[in-house]
């Protein structure tokens, strides 16, 4: 009887260990498959040109090089002719450049990704849109027309549209470039926050950077935000 119980325990322990081992190996199936590839190989495949002579292949190679050169030219033609601006919203960095050279690079501030909940079902997401945007306008000494969220953030009553309380002077720096839908590239009073994602969706630049960007880009120039 005693011996039978021991045998049963042994059988169960052996089976369970085997089951756990199998499960573990199932978990490691990808590694097993990789090791299995040691036992397999594909037949050598010389490819399409294998039966052709070297003269034919050389001719084909020349044609391929021509096609490559044509594609590279087409790709280069996709680049803007004038200066353009690249904005990295993750690293909060910008690069102002032309096809051939970098004019200026530095830090900026972009959308904070804050979702502001006003409590009455109203909410705003402060993110910088991504994509390609042409400059729609250039403004010297821009005036900020404060949107509703600016009042909600300060816990102040929201004034009616076009109310003088909505106008704020000097906040946006000396210049602004409009990208559409209320998004701007502008300056900031909060220079210490440059390089951090702290804006409500606009792109903030330092004073000197802003001036160079403003003077380099024209209406229609492209801004790539990613």
């Amino acid at each position, binding site marked *: 009887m005693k011996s039978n119980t021991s045998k049963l325990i042994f059988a169960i322990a052996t089976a369970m260990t085997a089951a756990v081992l199998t499960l573990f190996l199932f978990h490691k199936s990808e590694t097993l498959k990789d090791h299995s590839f040691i036992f397999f190989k594909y037949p050598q495949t010389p490819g399409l040109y294998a039966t052709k002579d070297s003269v034919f292949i050389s001719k084909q190679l020349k044609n391929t090089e021509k096609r490559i050169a044509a594609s590279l030219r087409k790709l280069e033609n*996709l680049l803007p002719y004038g200066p353009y601006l690249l904005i990295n919203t993750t690293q909060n960095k910008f690069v102002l450049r032309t096809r051939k050279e970098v004019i200026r690079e530095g830090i900026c501030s972009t959308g904070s990704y804050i979702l502001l909940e006003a409590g009455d079902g109203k909410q705003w997401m402060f993110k910088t849109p991504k994509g390609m945007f042409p400059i729609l306008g250039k403004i010297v000494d821009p005036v900020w027309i404060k949107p509703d969220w600016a009042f909600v953030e300060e816990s102040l009553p929201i004034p009616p549209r076009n109310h003088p309380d909505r106008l704020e002077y000097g906040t946006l720096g000396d210049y602004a470039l409009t990208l559409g839908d209320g998004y701007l590239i502008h300056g900031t009073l909060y220079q210490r926050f440059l390089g951090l994602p702290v804006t409500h969706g606009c792109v903030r630049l330092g004073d000197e950077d802003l001036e160079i960007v403003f003077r380099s880009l024209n209406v229609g120039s492209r801004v790539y935000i990613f």
Partner: protein
Amino acid sequence: MTGIFKNLSETVKRRVPLKWVVIFIAVQITAVAAAFLIFGLIPVSREVKNITATYGLDKAADKSALSENADLLFKIREREHYDSFLRSALALSKSDSISLLIDLSDSLAILSLKGVFLFQTKISEIEFNKGLDKLPVFLRDSLYSGPFMVEREFASIEKFPVVVKKAPKDTTEANADNSAPVLPTQNDVFVLLAFANNLVIEINQEEDDLAGSVKAWREYKKGYSKFFKEHNLALFKDKNAPEYLYRIKISIPREDARSIYRALPLKPFVLVRY
């Protein structure tokens, strides 16, 4: 129950018979061999057979021709692949979305929008799994270059690092809020992009040390294991499920990986040059 435990301890205390040890080891070896066969050899064998039959590799041309013009054949294959990569990049430039170009030949990961290279970073490490490594180069170039749309993705960081903030109740609270910006936590960056054609691209940070939370990294590892487990389970449920996943792993600097992942839209297009 108490009896069983008593017996167990007695069994352990006693010298285990050699026969039992042999049986135990034999069973475990059989289990390992069976697992290797079922989870490893059989799916790989099916995959190799399938590829060989589908693309007529068994009826390949004379090998002697290969050796004569080997250098020239290698060069034309490489240039034709580059040509097709450029043409795909041109095709992608018609899209309004940001796409990812992975140039393994020049070790670059590039974000592209409308033909403009927005951002590029050096790839410090490239790793293929055995299946992709052994695949004939012309098949790898034509089957696993793309452009492909990502079918499934997951990462150790959020795509959109949203911070929810309640509007302040009064001006005192508002003034307190304005003193310091709310910044999202910066976790480590590991990304897995899976495609419909069984290709998996892993973009990992090159830094070994974890800068962010260990919890986020563990969550990613959990999702990572789950992804492969689901794939392996599917093999038992569905006869047509893919037998093998072709994998490319690239390592790039952490902050560059973050920029790339966050810049890409949901279901982006990816193009690979080998």
